[in-house]
């Protein structure tokens, strides 16, 4: 039987990992917390056997120290199956820990299932064009699971024990942390999405897009360049491989070409509408309704009709 260990810098995602471990048959779940007593207590209350490291020499900004600490705990516990959260911090730690433990590692996992003594994992491959089912065959396994893949577990009775580790002097110094400006939209929860891409002429056209989203009872989302290059919308609203995977009832996709890294984030929508000025746009191949038109006209007309 595998010995499971979980770690995430975020409490919510660590809780999800407890459920993940149990879903593939973990009888007991060991959880590591680093300089976070509140998280330790929350995980214990959800049934985990928590190992709490309190060590000022470990900064989350120095992933070498975090991975070293995790490696030491894994060795002490004899843990062979390590679940991490596949957020950016989790992925950064995953590769480093994999090298320490000489482990096989899979990141961005969107589903896991026990099949005999194997844990079969699913992840997007080829930019999202395909979904690969893979398992790790080496003795040590690291699996980084996408946030929100599992729910939080129910209450349980776990424990918190202190753990000590040694880390080297850090070569990484945190100068400043800036929190992201408050867009707390959850496009994954929206019933309807109005998704705009680089076909949008200007930032000034956004109020009309927002009005349409409101009329449909949904939210505005976008392709990656609209947020990262143009910076017209927040990165919270990106649909796709490096953004969110959404399953709305209705997705109206305007001015987006339909490259795989985008479509992977919306292909589970129930009804897809593609509006593009190019009648041969790739996006049309994955739409239920295709309208070849200027998106600005369509937005205007929909706003006045609805």
């Amino acid at each position, binding site marked *: 039987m595998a010995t499971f260990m979980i770690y995430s810098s975020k409490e919510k995602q660590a809780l999800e990992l407890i459920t993940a471990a149990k879903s593939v048959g973990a009888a007991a779940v060991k959880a590591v917390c680093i300089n976070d007593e509140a998280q330790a207590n929350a995980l214990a209350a959800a049934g985990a056997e928590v190992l709490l490291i309190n060590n000022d020499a470990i900064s989350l900004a120095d992933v070498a120290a975090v*991975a070293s600490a995790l490696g030491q705990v894994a060795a002490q516990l004899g843990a062979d199956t390590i679940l991490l959260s596949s957020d950016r911090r989790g992925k950064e730690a995953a590769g480093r820990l994999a090298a320490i433990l000489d482990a096989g590692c899979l990141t961005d996992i969107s589903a896991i299932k026990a099949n005999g003594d194997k844990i079969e994992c699913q992840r997007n491959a080829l930019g999202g064009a395909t979904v690969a089912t893979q398992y790790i065959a080496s003795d040590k396994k690291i699996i980084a699971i996408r946030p929100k893949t599992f729910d939080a577990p129910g209450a349980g009775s776990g424990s918190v024990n202190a753990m000590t580790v040694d880390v080297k002097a850090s070569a990484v110094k945190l100068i400043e942390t*800036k929190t992201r400006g408050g867009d707390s939209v959850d496009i994954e929860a929206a019933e309807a999405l109005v998704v705009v891409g680089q076909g949008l002429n200007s930032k000034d056209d956004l109020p009309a897009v927002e009005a349409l989203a409101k009329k449909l009872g949904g939210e505005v989302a976008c392709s990656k360049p609209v947020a990262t290059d143009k910076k017209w919308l927040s990165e919270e609203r990106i649909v796709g491989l490096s953004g969110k995977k959404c399953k709305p009832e209705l997705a109206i996709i305007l001015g987006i070409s339909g490259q795989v890294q985008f479509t992977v984030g919306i292909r589970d929508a129930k009804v897809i509408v593609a509006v593009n000025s190019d009648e041969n746009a790739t996006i049309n191949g994955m739409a239920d309704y295709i309208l070849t038109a200027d998106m600005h006209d369509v937005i205007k007309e929909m706003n006045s009709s609805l």
Partner: protein
Amino acid sequence: MNIVVAMKQVPDLQQVRIRNREPVFTDVPLVLGNIDKNALEAAVAIKESGDANVIALSAGNEDVEDTIKEALAAGADEAFLVLDDKLNGAESGVVAQVLAAAVKKIDDVGLILFGEGSGDNYSGQVGSRVAELLGLPQVAYASALELKGDKALVTRSLEDCTEIVEVTLPAVVTVLSDINEARIPSVTQILKAGKKPKEVLELDEVGVKIPPAASVVTVSNLAPETERKRIVVKSVAELIQSLTTEGVIGR
């Protein structure tokens, strides 16, 4: 100072077709990963504002010798290649060992840059693995990078915050695509690229053996089944009519 940029040869995903849910790679051209080009651009920007020599490092099959020209045209001064057919589709752990062994053969390395994720696998492991194998500090998900003497000032962009960190060189940095806009080389630059120095090694020469058993096994890799209606509508009125019938608007 040498800046090493790890760049992976991948099939041009835009041109991969799906047949019977299987990806088809025949006649798909090989290119360098998109984000790896941003990593190169970041290195070239440092070179242009100071003094550095940019080395494009790649592990793969012999086609890399041709594919890497794009990097030499876009500002890399030389290429360092480890070529072997066995490196085609090799897993992250093996690739990291090869790249780490190659970096050890290069003198005076100050920075090793990676993409945040490779074009085809997008797993985000190789940079972190190499950093650990070389015992170097790292900062991933960089949206800005600046050299200051023997240190680098890096902006690490996370989901809910950005961190500005100072890291002592030599260090590994993995970059996001938003760090810059990668230049597109001119025809003359492409022609000149063929003359830039290339060091080509075989797997034995970097002392890495491919383990007999894979640590990651792929059971299947299929495109998801999607049935879409693909109905062409002529007007907004017709669209609204259809969506009302579907029950997705006007509830």
